[in-house]
């Protein structure tokens, strides 16, 4: 094994070791803790970029598209295995980018608002990286729980009644979902006798017809656990208030938590119930499609009805989840490719939006906000005044209001999916895939549910535009005496950075679409994934 293969384990070990080391440093050494945490996150970003290049260097046509790494060097179906392919590499980069942005943002103020922020943050990154890299279901559960445990701590970071109350709901919902996850995993194990995802895809063919019902029940229960995480209607009512309650950098990194649910559903549905699965082909696709459609409709009305910007952003997360789930439910490679582009674009946008909201809220006069809970959520009831002295440190941004306005406008364009930013390219790529089922130029009759999805995707963009215009006018134009907010460079830089990345996605749209197309094609060819994990013989057994 070449040494570069060992890079696969770096995104998990690096945050784990850093998080553990940070525990040993006393809370009074803010700067040292921040520097260690920052260095680790930068290294994580570098490692994931290298891994993406590795994943992208293997040819997609009939080659091995996944690289596997056997932890402790036991052979694949027995051992814990990490698998890298284009999709997981893409998700890793996304985790590192959002992680870096929210970490930098937190350095202005939030990382001192409570103990062990950096440790929890690193553990969250570790759990996320592990969930995206793992090749078996039980480790997925473990990494999922690591992520959740860290997210419980981070959601409560900064304390306050609103945060604790929504934290209670968040924890209760997620504990219940984890129990469903366990039931699903153990049912699948009971039927097939394996937890390795690639091995599972192979053994699925040998499941006797009598046991198939149990297997389907297990897969469905497992799916529900991830649908809760992704926030599909009617399992999503916890999401807007939890995301609104969390501190700004925390809700920014939480945006990627919903994407873990989407990622697992995408991976498992195409690996286990793809075109080779015989009678099980397309299992769950209808549920995801319709669930996604209803979620988009529900979240669109939520976006229009939101008074507070935090809630608006929470519903935008739901719009993005719903659109992705519906696209996954369609199961078509071109649609999935567009959906992956949309995933990247919408994650970057909503993460930037959550951080921007905190800065914009400072420009509002206290009391201008209709919902008192928002102020409570951002800790303006006393907590902030005590920290005013600390805030004087750091470079203050000149012309803050103008820059905030430009960023806000960019977020509005991205959420609405208007040109010239990447939101437009993403939606365009998805819609092209939906309307050209058999490739460009081949006439195809479009089923009504596809038209429904097309209409909902466009309408959700319109709703986002309306809602953003309303809150933008209310914030930037309507107040008679505008309070010029104090914004530090270190706070606006990550927001601007994420938005610049979205611009970059537009400019480099061609290369990005090529990458997502390759990722989608390899997802639709499970035998290549299996070949990467178990070797060529097993893959042939599936492909026949």
């Amino acid at each position: 094994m070449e040494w570069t293969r060992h890079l696969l384990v770096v995104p998990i070990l690096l945050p784990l070791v850093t998080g553990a080391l940070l525990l040993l440093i006393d809370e009074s050494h803010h700067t040292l803790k921040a520097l260690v945490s920052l260095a680790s996150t930068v290294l994580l970003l570098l490692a994931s970029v290298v891994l993406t290049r590795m994943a992208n260097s293997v040819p997609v046509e009939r080659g091995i598209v996944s690289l596997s790494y056997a932890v402790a060097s036991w052979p694949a179906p027995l051992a814990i295995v990490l698998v890298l392919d284009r999709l997981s590499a893409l998700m890793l980069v996304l985790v590192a980018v959002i992680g870096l942005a929210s970490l930098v943002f937190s350095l202005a103020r939030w990382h001192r608002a409570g103990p062990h922020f950096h440790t929890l943050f690193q553990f969250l990154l570790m759990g996320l990286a592990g969930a995206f890299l793992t090749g078996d279901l039980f480790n997925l559960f473990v990494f999922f729980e690591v992520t959740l445990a860290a997210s419980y701590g981070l959601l409560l970071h900064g304390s306050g009644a609103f945060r604790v109350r929504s934290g209670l709901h968040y924890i209760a919902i997620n504990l219940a979902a984890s129990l469903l996850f366990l039931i699903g995993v153990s049912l699948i194990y009971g039927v097939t006798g394996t937890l390795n995802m690639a091995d599972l895809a192979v053994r699925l063919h040998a499941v006797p017809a009598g046991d198939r019902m149990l297997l389907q029940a297990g897969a469905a229960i497992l799916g529900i656990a991830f649908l809760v995480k992704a926030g599909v209607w009617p399992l999503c009512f916890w999401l807007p208030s939890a995301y609104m309650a969390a501190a700004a950098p925390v809700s920014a990194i939480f945006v990627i938590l919903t994407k873990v649910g989407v990622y697992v559903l995408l991976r498992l549905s195409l690996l286990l119930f793809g075109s080779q699965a015989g009678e099980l082909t397309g299992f769950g696709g209808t549920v995801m499609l319709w669930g996604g459609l209803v979620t988009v409709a529900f979240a669109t009305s939520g976006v229009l009805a939101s008074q507070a910007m935090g809630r608006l952003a929470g519903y935008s997360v739901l719009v993005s989840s719903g659109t992705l789930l519906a696209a996954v439910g369609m199961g078509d490679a071109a649609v999935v490719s567009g959906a992956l582009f949309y995933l990247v674009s919408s994650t970057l946008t909503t993460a930037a939006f959550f951080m921007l909201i905190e800065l914009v809220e400072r420009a509002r006069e206290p009391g201008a906000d209709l919902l008192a809970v928002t102020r409570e959520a951002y800790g303006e009831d006393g907590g902030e005044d005590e920290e005013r002295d600390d805030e004087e440190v750091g470079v203050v941004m000149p012309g803050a209001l103008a820059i905030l306005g430009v960023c806000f406008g960019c977020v509005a364009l991205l959420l609405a999916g208007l040109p010239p930013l990447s939101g437009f390219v993403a939606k365009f790529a998805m819609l092209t895939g939906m309307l050209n089922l058999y490739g460009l130029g081949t006439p195809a009759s479009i089923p009504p549910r596809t038209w429904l999805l097309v209409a909902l995707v466009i309408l959700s963009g319109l709703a986002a535009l309306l809602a953003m215009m309303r809150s933008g006018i209310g914030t930037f134009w309507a107040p008679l005496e505008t309070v010029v907010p104090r914004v530090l460079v270190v706070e606006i830089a990550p927001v601007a950075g994420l938005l610049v990345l979205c611009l970059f996605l537009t400019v480099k749209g061609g290369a990005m679409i090529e990458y997502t197309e390759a990722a989608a094609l390899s997802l639709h060819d499970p035998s290549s994934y299996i070949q990467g994990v178990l070797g060529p013989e097993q893959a042939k057994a599936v492909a026949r």
Partner: protein
Amino acid sequence: MELTLAIAIGVLTGSGVWLVLRPRTYQLVIGLSLLSYAVNLFIFSMGRLRVGAAPVLGADGSGNPADFADPVPQALVLTAIVIGFATTALLLVVLIAARGLTGSDHVDGRESR
């Protein structure tokens, strides 16, 4: 044996679900604990139930490998117990914090009426 275990899991799940749907935080914690017991027993039973089988080998060195209980679900149960224990402990802390901050043990922080 199967019937006893099935009834036990069913009773635990039923009481757990009922308690989770109640409005008090304490009922929520107990409900989630009961549910996790039920799930742990369920995972355990996925390794198939056997009565009177030798743990590894019989006293005379005999033993059919097909008779052994599957160790993987047992390992899974251990992990699930540890994780469930930790998260329940965390939930308890949040519960006490919520009680202190809102002055109510209702899950919404205030009575519904």
